[in-house]
């Protein structure tokens, strides 16, 4: 165990999974998973559906509690806190403190339908970060401009297309200034012609570079383009990982080869 990681170092991993196991009843979706994310690393997780890749994001966002193992975020345990040298289940307060370093964009957007695009983006900075309303709005406007929705701020989610909703959702997550951003199949629910506008926004974020990004996606071309590292995940474990060129063009494991030949044939 490396419990004494100093916080905020540029080389220490921002996220570290140590033997993390998660099962839903009989089905084990994460099997003693060891996994690290560098402070500004862009990682794409690919693999067959039902392989548990989304669960990696969900336990990290504290939406699912692991059955075993420890997850560290920025040197601190996420689901645990240290008491008298022992790791015990985290209190709500500790969970909120560590969770604040992580942001997430969902497959189905999950925008708040009773709020305008602008309020969707300002709500958490105002109520969670206690940012003055004026400052939060100024920043929200900047972020909505950045995702190309400067003219849709007063629109409600129901008045926006899927691609626009997802871009608002990205702005909403960015407003909390996370150190790690999770993208969970964020283009899977979109009509094909709207996928590009969302990928463009994510590509720009990847190029800006300061935030670590963890993407689960079926867009292989995009994964190749933005990732520092591609992780092939199957049956609850990392099968193979490396730079995109290695994984896509020269996979070593039979399972990886079989998966890519099936995916790329489509």
């Amino acid at each position: 165990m490396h419990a004494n990681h100093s916080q905020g170092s540029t080389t220490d991993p921002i996220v570290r999974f140590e033997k993390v196991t998660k099962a839903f009843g009989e089905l084990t979706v994460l099997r003693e998973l060891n996994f690290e994310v560098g402070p500004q690393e862009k990682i794409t997780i690919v693999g067959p559906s039902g392989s548990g890749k989304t669960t990696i994001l969900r336990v990290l966002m504290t939406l699912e509690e692991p059955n075993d193992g420890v997850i560290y975020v920025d040197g601190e345990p996420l689901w645990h806190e240290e008491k008298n040298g022992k790791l015990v289940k985290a209190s709500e307060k500790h969970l909120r403190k560590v969770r604040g370093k992580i942001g997430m964009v969902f497959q189905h957007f999950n925008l708040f339908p009773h709020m305008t695009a602008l309020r969707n983006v300002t709500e958490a900075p105002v109520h969670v970060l206690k940012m003055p309303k004026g400052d939060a709005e100024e920043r929200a406007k900047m972020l909505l401009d950045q995702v190309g929705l400067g003219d849709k701020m007063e629109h409600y989610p129901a008045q926006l297309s899927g691609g626009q909703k997802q871009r608002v959702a990205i702005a909403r997550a960015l407003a909390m200034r996370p150190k790690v951003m999770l993208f969970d199949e964020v283009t899977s629910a979109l009509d094909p012609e709207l996928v590009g506008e969302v990928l463009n926004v994510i590509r720009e974020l990847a190029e800006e570079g300061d935030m670590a990004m963890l993407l689960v996606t079926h867009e292989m071309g995009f994964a190749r383009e933005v990732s520092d590292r591609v992780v092939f995940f199957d049956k609850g474990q990392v099968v193979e990982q490396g730079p995109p060129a290695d994984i896509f063009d020269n996979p070593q494991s039979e399972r990886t080869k079989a998966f890519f030949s099936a995916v790329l044939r489509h």
Partner: protein
Amino acid sequence: MLGWDWQFTLEILPRLLGGLVVTIEATITGFIIAIILGLFLALGRRSENQWIAQPIGAFVEFIRSTPLLVQLFFFFFVLPRYGLRLPAFVVGTIALGLHYGTYTSEVYRAGIDAIERGQWEAATALNFSPLRVWTGIILPQAIPPMIPALGNYLIGMFKESAQLLAITVTELMLTARVIGTETFRFLEPITMAGLLYFLLSYPSALIVQRLEARYARKS
């Protein structure tokens, strides 16, 4: 058979309207109790702590499965034996609020359950406090579609408040009966009481129907 006496009807109308005012006061006070209590009962029943959820669940089922009259008599005749003596109107509104609070709690429960899991997950991902999740995200979405169902219970309470006559609250129904026993004419006071109930509840029911149609279109 006595025929309808318009002169008599006009004479008793002010007293009946006075009774109607008491009926409305009891209904509104009871409804405010019911919608606040119902929310807490619904939240309590959802609690992860079974020491809270189970007793509240049992309480809700018990009240819902017994007549309002039992609760009225319990508060009015039984509690004073143990030193808790309250005015009839107060007992009546508390019993009404309690009885209907168990119904509204089910409305809240269904409304809260109708909120997609993704809303809770987005709220967690944005790190809102549990209180803010309820007040800022969940309830503002859950409550508007509940309004028609709550409106139906309001109308139900308005009519069932007639039972308060059993504990001597001089609301509309008791007023009509007292006029009947005083004058030996029941036709006009009872008919007029019925008409007054109708004049308020029927238009309200129409409004509720329109609200229902509006939410049905939206979803």
